[in-house]
């Protein structure tokens, strides 16, 4: 199957230079890096596809060395940490970035797969409604969250972060799954409506603040808000199904220790509906 390969030019229009030294980068609005759009283009149209850099408009060929041909699968090489909206609203296809990406990566994504082999910025997968996001490094704040003023965050789909995530992860999440292999910032799953969030590292403060429903699975103890009730210490069978699904469907490695032993079940937030749950794995 054909692929499109894009290599970021070392010298590109987004670089801010002083005395020939790069001192910064202008954000690039890169929502055109989207398989839905690219797969049907011819090579010439692809080269002339626009990228907005600050208030100026540039073309793909100004930024990338292009190899292969327009296809549903796109591989990008380089540090794209100033590129925003990569894969935003994509519905199908696959993007692999061998490097970092900027804010809003895969935000409002509807389907397909995006894989970032570096770090990514804030608002990763915000308000996504489908698809699979895999981040090899760290993600910023607001992973799978709702945009300011919106009622619903992520609503279906799966985000897997092998590194750490920032604050407000899963804010107002409605459906779907977020798995964080590393640590997570404050206010994890705040105002969560439903869905599942797994953190295999440590968490910041105020986990589940204002959550209505949904499940937060933690491998490390936390200081819970006083508005959560303790229910039981048990081994929930549904987690076998959940873990098998993550391993079989998404090749996500679940730490072996989490597959046995008990979890403490807390429910809350009692300032809201009180039907959310936090399951904390209990060390022997």
């Amino acid at each position, binding site marked *: 199957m054909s692929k499109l390969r894009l290599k970021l030019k070392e010298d590109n229009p987004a670089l801010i230079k002083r005395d020939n030294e790069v001192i910064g980068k202008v954000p690039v609005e890169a929502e055109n890096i989207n398989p839905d759009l690219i797969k049907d283009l011819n090579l010439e149209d692809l080269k002339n596809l626009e990228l907005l850099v600050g208030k100026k408009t540039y073309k793909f060929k100004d930024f990338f060395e292009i190899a292969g041909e327009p296809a549903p699968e796109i591989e990008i090489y380089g540090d794209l940490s100033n590129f925003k909206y990569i894969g935003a609203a994509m519905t199908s296809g696959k993007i692999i970035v061998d490097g970092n990406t900027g804010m809003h990566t895969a935000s409002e994504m509807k389907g397909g797969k995006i894989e970032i082999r570096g770090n990514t910025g804030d608002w990763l997968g915000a308000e996504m409604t489908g698809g699979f996001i895999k981040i090899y490094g760290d993600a910023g704040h607001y992973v799978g969250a709702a945009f300011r003023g919106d009622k619903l965050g992520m609503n*279906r789909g799966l985000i897997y972060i092998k590194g750490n995530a920032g604050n407000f992860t899963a804010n107002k999440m409605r459906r779907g799954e977020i798995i964080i292999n590393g640590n997570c910032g404050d206010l994890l799953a705040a105002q969560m409506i439903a*869905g599942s969030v797994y953190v295999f590292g440590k968490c910041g403060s105020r986990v589940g603040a204002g959550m209505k429903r949904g499940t937060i699975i933690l491998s490390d103890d936390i200081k819970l808000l006083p508005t959560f009730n303790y229910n039981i210490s048990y081994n*929930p*069978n549904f987690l*076998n*199904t959940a873990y*098998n*699904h993550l391993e079989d469907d998404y090749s996500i490695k679940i730490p072996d220790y989490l597959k046995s032993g008990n979890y403490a079940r807390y429910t809350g937030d009692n300032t809201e509906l009180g039907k959310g*749950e936090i399951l904390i794995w209990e060390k022997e």
Partner: protein
Amino acid sequence: MQVKGINIADTFAEAFSMYGTRVIVTAENDKWAKTAAREASGFATSIIECGIEAGIEKKLSPEETIDGRPGYSILFFTMKKDSLKKELRKRVGQTIMTAATTACFNGLQSEEKIKVGGDIRYFGDGFQISKLYADRRFWRIPIMGGEFLIEESFGIQKGIGGGNIIIIGEDQKTALQAAENAVEKMREVKGVVMPFPGGIVSSGSKIESKYSFLNASTNTAFCPTIKGQTESKLKNNAGAVYEIVIDGLSTEAVAQAMKRGIKAAAVPGIIEITAGNYGGDLGTENFYLHEILRGDLDE
């Protein structure tokens, strides 16, 4: 036609189109998975009196189940979609959910689905929790033993009910052993169940009776103790007759099971292997024994 010297009647089994589904039940250990599976598929020999036909299809290892626990797959069949949903809801609710440590999953990927867990969830009285994994919705229902996990919907498909073979032996022991051999081989076929006790029918019926209040009565033509009193289909040396009824998710699976069953039942002491039909006017599928044995349906 003969198989291993045993006469195979030139006749056919008359079967019916039914709706079928596969339910996977798992539990903490084999004991409770088996208990639940047997309860769920119990009293489900014939839709005429039981409302549903069911049987255990296969024992499943932990590696074969979605939650990594031991389990069993059970096939259920009814004539109509609505009745399948209604009967399944009752059986899952009353025999699987009530069995200790169990969980219940859809085992048939199909476009057409019936909501079962989606109805049973209300037992949770508002404390049930939905989980959506890769487009499969599950319900966690709080119960006294912990939590009951059930999939929201179960796939259904058109299947076959009433495939059958009839084994005529010289005596009861021989006929029963032949029938047991046949059932053992039939159970190796995926997608079929033999819904009667032990897979074998000891009291097959005909669809008429001298009594006006009965729709069916004993299959007099195959009852050895009255062969001198009736228009019998049995030879003088016939001592016992057993029938095996096969329900399957496909025509091919039923034919394959019949073929294996006939071959396994062809042992010394068996007089003839035949099949039950109503002249071909009632059923939707006719399984001709000679065709099956020739492998015509394998292609």
